[in-house]
């Protein structure tokens, strides 16, 4: 028997290793092919695809570790039970306290795993332009064409055609997200509609407290901070519906701060955007010029939205002004 040494003694380590390898391979294969394709956040965007792959890689690495622990526990409980006939009494001494070979292997193996995961994670973040997370106002990793699209949006000369980066501004406010499309006259809508096979540059900000824009199926999550533009990228790959939730506890109606968006064909998107641009034209004319952030006038209740040249950032003094807090 392979698990016995030349003296006919059972080699427990070899036997456990064999069990562990077989179970790990089976578990990893089952997970990768049966569960993996269904792991969140799905496959609606390139970011989602890559994040799903990252989760699956982590699980494929973690499963053997988990199984290793279980195999050892199971083996020990079964084979070294004091009730089992022929099992020697446990002994103390050096051999019970330490095993240099096991220690070295354990440290080496876990170090390799951790270093690999650190490298893999770093690569994924860089290769995927922030991997769907907010990169702040000056992204380190931007997809090709994003900078030009965002510059055009800010200058008011933005337009969009299929195959190019689409800039969408996400505005958080207590308690709803709204969205501005600078490439279509800067209209604002409470609906988030995106074209498929398009790199999206989300520019996320807030008009009041901190919110967090979490488009789960898009695998995009970026905090919405007042007076700060937080940029996150993703590339849509499949049509379908997705959910947007606020993932930062932001007040009474935080639980209701969600809406549903959809990824549609480029043709359908152009139709929707053109129709909405026309329908909203009267109100769009009343909106402030497109900007990365908006500083509400700090005049307390019903504070206006427009920077008027004399605006100061929020402060309790400026917010309350001469007004008396209500009881």
């Amino acid at each position: 028997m392979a698990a016995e040494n030349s003296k006919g003694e059972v080699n427990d380590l070899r036997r456990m290793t064999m069990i562990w390898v077989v179970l790990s391979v089976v578990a990893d294969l089952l997970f990768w092919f049966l569960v993996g394709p269904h792991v969140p956040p799905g496959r609606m965007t390139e970011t989602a695809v890559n994040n799903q792959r990252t989760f699956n890689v982590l699980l494929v690495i973690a499963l053997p570790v988990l199984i290793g622990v279980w195999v050892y526990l199971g083996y020990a409980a079964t084979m070294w039970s004091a009730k089992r006939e022929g099992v020697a009494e446990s002994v103390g001494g050096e051999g019970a306290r330490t095993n240099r070979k096991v220690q070295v292997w354990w440290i080496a193996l876990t170090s390799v795993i951790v270093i690999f995961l650190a490298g893999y994670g770093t690569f994924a973040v860089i290769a995927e332009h922030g991997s769907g997370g907010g990169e702040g106002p000056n992204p380190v990793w931007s997809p090709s064409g994003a900078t030009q699209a965002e510059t055009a949006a800010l200058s008011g000369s933005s337009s969009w055609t299929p195959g190019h980066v689409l800039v969408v501004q996400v505005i958080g406010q207590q308690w709803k997200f709204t969205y501005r499309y600078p490439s279509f006259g800067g209209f604002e809508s409470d609906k988030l509609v995106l074209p498929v096979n398009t790199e999206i540059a989300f520019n996320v900000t807030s008009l009041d407290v901190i919110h967090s824009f979490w488009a789960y199926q898009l695998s995009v999550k970026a905090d919405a901070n007042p007076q700060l533009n937080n940029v996150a990228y993703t590339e849509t790959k499949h049509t379908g519906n997705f959910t947007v939730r606020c993932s930062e506890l932001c007040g009474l109606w935080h639980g209701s701060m969600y809406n549903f968006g959809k990824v549609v064909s480029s043709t359908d998107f152009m139709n929707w955007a053109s129709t909405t641009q026309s329908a909203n034209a009267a109100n769009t004319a009343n909106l402030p010029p497109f900007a990365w952030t908006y500083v509400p006038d700090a005049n307390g209740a019903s504070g206006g939205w427009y920077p008027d040249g004399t605006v100061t950032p929020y402060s309790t003094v400026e917010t309350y002004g001469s007004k008396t807090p209500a009881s």
Partner: protein
Amino acid sequence: MSRNGRLATVLGLFVVAVGLVVAAVAAFLTPGIPGGVVNFTSGSAGQPVSLVVQTVPSIGVGFGDHPTWVSYLVKTPSGKWVHSTTWQLPANTVVNMTILQYDSGSPLRNQQWGQVTGTLGNTMSLNGTATSAYNSNTGDGVGHTFTVPALGLDIPLVGIGGGSTNACSQAPCGTNFDHNTITFSFKTPGPGNYPWQCFVPCGLGYLFGNGGPMSTQGYMGGFLKVVA
């Protein structure tokens, strides 16, 4: 006491303690609905429902612990003004809504809420004039909004003139005081609880204007409780 007796006593006390904890948590999580639910489902099936509400600059005495807070009130089917913001409506039914706006206005923090959306025809009547968008940076500004995010319903409630000498000071306000009358219609969806709120940060004196009445159910937000 026997061993079994002691065991039974301990178990009994444990069950009582767990029960008390569960009851306390349940009471905390289900605080009830401020002002109760006003029922508008007693009419004939399929017939439009009439819903009349008013916004007041201060709720006044007799309506709870915060007489200076801004608030909504609703008129019950029997014609009585009550301080409730949870209204039970029939599903898939047209609601003809009238809002009597007694508060003053100012520029919106987000002018997007100046656009009328989600009503039949995406329009409202402001003192008899059809309106689809209101520029809050002009005129009397917007005092409040009636917005149901899940339905895409948004109505800007234009404020009364800031120099009004006939403003209502406390609820319920009569139509002899200065006010704007806003009417519109919308259709209720299927059964469910749909939160509504004001999108003007009108909690005067609170940080960003979104505390106090904006963050307390029963004042500037509530539910449309739509039932089959």
